[in-house]
């Protein structure tokens, strides 16, 4: 152990070079992972942040809320199914908003996703600013904090395109985005008022909602979702994967991440191997004076471990500094859990890549210490 540290300190230049590679790789890995999490929240936040087990959709909607219309009165039937402990109606509508009283077309229009929920249901988001809405006050809405960057504040009145309905922002929530747009939560009644101003637009469905979110364990929806029943059921995972673009987006970033890891494993492996080869004679001397393979291998691995650990910590530090200078609108979210997972993977890869060298070390003949072949 001390042998490893002493060499690290003595041959600083050489090890700083390798360390720098690990720092840069881990930096890139953390930024990519932050960007990946940020993008996936932007794409799926409303669903991925909520705590539910699955959603009941209209048959044929392919687990997509925007394609689905069912009657809210199904809730009772859904609640009666095996394993269901709670239900919450949910509606979504892509529309755009602008500040009230600015009817002239010069005023900025922002695309949003309007989310209708029943107040006090489990789909209601947590607030980061402002007050909870008052159930009896239909015109109150909760907005995602990202709307603050668009110039909206608590107390602002807003109108929707195509209607003259007006609502007021009473609170902000965070990470509640869907289809890469900020969300605006309204009560279900107000939602219907905005989305379906007349009965025809709701296809004549009574109490229309997009879907019914379900909570519970070991849920069995078979009885309700037989073909022809007009309903289908998707788990939380299926629902999130059905969000347009999400799977492709996520897969791209994940693929980049793992390719980066694999490439780094090879680069580091080659580096350590060259380093070991350079030290063949030295290891030969250690063996000649009685050093066992285990002693030398332990020393090499602990060296790689320290080097990788310090470099990864530096990478984390650099990433946190990067976060400070990123623009606020950039979808970037660094999760402690992801950082620790990727740190461990990088650490593992570094040690794994030194195993080539370990195999080489055990083959070094202590005779090389004599420095001549006879």
């Amino acid at each position, binding site marked *: 152990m*001390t*042998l490893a540290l*002493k*060499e690290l*300190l*003595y*041959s600083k230049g050489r090890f700083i070079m390798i360390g720098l590679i690990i720092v840069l790789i881990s930096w890139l890995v953390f930024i990519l992972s932050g960007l990946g999490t940020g993008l996936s929240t932007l794409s799926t936040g409303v669903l991925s942040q909520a705590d539910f087990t699955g959603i009941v959709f209209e048959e044929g909607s392919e687990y997509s809320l925007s394609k689905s219309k069912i009657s809210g009165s199904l809730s009772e039937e859904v609640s009666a199914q095996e394993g269901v402990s709670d239900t919450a109606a949910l509606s979504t509508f892509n529309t755009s908003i602008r500040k009230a009283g600015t009817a002239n077309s010069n005023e900025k229009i922002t695309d949003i996703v309007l989310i209708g929920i029943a107040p006090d249901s489990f789909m209601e988001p947590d607030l980061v600013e402002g007050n909870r809405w008052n159930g009896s006050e239909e015109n109150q809405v909760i907005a995602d904090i990202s709307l603050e960057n668009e110039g909206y504040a608590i107390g602002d009145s807003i109108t929707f395109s195509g209607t003259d309905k007006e609502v007021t922002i009473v609170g902000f929530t965070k990470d509640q985005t869907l289809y890469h747009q900020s969300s605006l939560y309204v009560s279900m009644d107000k939602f219907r008022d905005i989305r379906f101003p007349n009965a025809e637009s709701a296809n004549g469905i009574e109490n229309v909602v997009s879907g019914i979110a379900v909570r519970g364990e070991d849920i069995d929806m078979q009885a309700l979702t037989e073909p022809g029943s007009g309903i289908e059921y998707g788990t939380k995972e299926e629902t999130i994967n059905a969000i347009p673009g999400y799977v492709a987006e996520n897969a791209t970033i994940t693929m980049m991440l793992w390719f980066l890891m694999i490439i780094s494993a090879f680069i580091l492996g080659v580096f350590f191997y060259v380093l070991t080869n350079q030290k063949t*004679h*030295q290891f030969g*001397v*250690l*063996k*000649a*004076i*009685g*050093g*066992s*393979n285990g*002693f030398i291998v332990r020393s090499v691995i602990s060296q790689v471990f320290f080097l990788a650990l310090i470099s990864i910590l530096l990478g984390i530090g650099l990433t946190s500094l990067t976060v400070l200078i990123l623009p606020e609108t950039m979808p970037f979210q660094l999760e402690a859990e992801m950082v620790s997972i990727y740190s461990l993977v990088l650490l593992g890869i570094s040690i794994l890549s030194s195993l080539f060298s370990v195999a080489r070390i055990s083959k070094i003949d*202590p*005779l090389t*210490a*004599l*420095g*001549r072949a*006879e």
Partner: protein
Amino acid sequence: MTGIQLKNVTKRYKENQFEITALEDVSVNIEAGEFVAIVGPSGSGKSTFLSIAGALLKPTEGQILINSNDITHFDEKKLSSVRLNQIGFILQTANLIPYLTVLDQLLIVKKMQGSVSKADRIFALELLKDLGLANKENKFPNECSGGERQRVAIARAFMNDPDIILADEPTSSLDTKRGHEVVQQMAEQVKMRGKAAIMVTHDERMLDYCDRVYRIVDGKLTEENHLA
């Protein structure tokens, strides 16, 4: 008995279809407190002799006994432990570890045996003092002269308190004056600490320090009448 014994040792190498005999029926017996030199031209089998005596190489035939203990058929792991605990190697060009200080060069031997105690540290400093290296303990090898490096290597060989000291051309990189100093100090340490020592050399000036001299030619070992 203590010391090292080689009994009828033969070493043959296969090179393509030719067989080369590097050592032929070599028998030698060196007791504790004896300082023996092996001289001979290059290619005569000196290194092979040293490698076999130093548990680095196995003989084709014959036996090696260290303190009457037959190590001929030990596996690599056991040989490594013999080298660590019973043999002190002094190599051609000192072969110190570049990133360790003089003191650490000695302590690494103890570290390989397990752990370094306070007594080990005191013993190491004492060895360095005996070899005229006091105040050099925090220097790195590249800050030492050639003679100093070779003396560090001698100190390192004694560090594990071995039964046998083996030196491979310890003076090859030194001038005459330094060479004499180094071999003289080596001889003193061998006598003082009662070790069986073998020095392989082609440097005939150094033979005065030795109790016996063997000459090796084409793998055959013969004792010389020593003038002293």
